[in-house]
């Protein structure tokens, strides 16, 4: 999937994460800040990168501001931002396919 325009999903509320994606220049550039960076920084980074990989995103600038989100919430926010960047978030989502 190709990031066509900037898009965001999520909030800065507790247990949530705000994810922003922008068109990249051939690679994934991830900037991450988290209220639980010391304990979970690596796990959050892995979850975000795995989710992007599953969606076939290979070029993007991604920013994640994490407020203690569970893995399932991180995935949901990354996916929503990516689909929004292609104006494809409203219907025919591949539930159980690329989104799982």
């Amino acid at each position: 999937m190709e990031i066509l325009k900037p898009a965001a999903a999520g909030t800065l509320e507790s247990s949530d994460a705000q994810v922003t994606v922008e068109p990249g220049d051939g690679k994934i550039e991830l900037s991450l800040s988290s209220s639980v960076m010391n304990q979970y920084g690596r796990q959050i980074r892995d979850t975000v990168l795995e989710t992007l990989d599953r969606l076939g995103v290979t070029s993007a600038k991604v920013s994640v501001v994490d407020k203690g989100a569970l893995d399932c919430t991180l995935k949901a926010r990354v996916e929503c931002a990516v689909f929004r960047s292609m104006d494809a978030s409203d219907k025919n989502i591949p539930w159980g396919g690329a989104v799982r």
Partner: protein
Amino acid sequence: MIPRPRPERFRLRRTMMFMNAQKPGLIKDAYIYGCDSIMLDLEDAVAENQKDAARFSLYHALKTIDYGDTEVIVRINGLDTPHWQEDIRVCVAGGADGIRIAKCESAQDVRTVEAAVEAAEKEFGVEVGRTLLMAALESPKGILNAYEICSASERMFGVAISGGDFRKCMQTTPQRDGIDMLAARGQMLLAARAAGIQCFDTVFTNLDDNEGFEAEVLQNKAMGFDGKSLINPKQIRFVHQVFAPTAKEIVQAERILRAYREQSAAGVGVFTVDGKMIDIAFIPGAERTLRLARACGMYEGDLV
């Protein structure tokens, strides 16, 4: 991945608590409160520009969080919106136990949703017929068509009234004695019982008015509702307390069932228990009391 068992059409549903599907902080802990069902909301609680985000959230919550014995129902957007079809796809793909049809007004509405659910079950390899349905009646037309709605599908387990919208249509407001919705509640209960499905009352929204809440729950129980929709965990305990059978009712139900078994084995159809006439008409009620008692942890016998 948390596989959920096949949903049970007629299970105990005293309390059904609404949760905004878009709020991760809420849905991750939903099961700990001990309500019988949770209602993850894609409709009114979710802002129009967050409907997409709520579905992603819902999908992963359904797939990841172990809700245990708590039933998981999803309230989808109305059939007059552009959202309901994708709502149904995500519910079925995620394995929700049931779907609540908002603003239901006719049997055709139920059949429209059922067709989309069946298509989604086939698309996602889910057993056809697994996903249950319930309808929310929110308008005078919905109430007048209650029976055809209640009997529209084998998937239908229950029907609920939605007080906020209904009162607006009727140009009234919540009244202390429930007179504002008396006719509607009565008509809906009649329809549900005639169709053999469950019936749930609307939410009580003034969290500061505990006395009013308790009065309404007692009236719900007296009218014959199966349960109530809730908006706050602190409302759960009282409803469970009111809907639990009393110790006296349990003893009586046990005596009726025992006597019935003995007497019918001896070829007797009508007899007395504690001076009251009992025949076969009393048996389903007695069995229901014991099943309810078992669910409330008040009965451990083997009669049901």
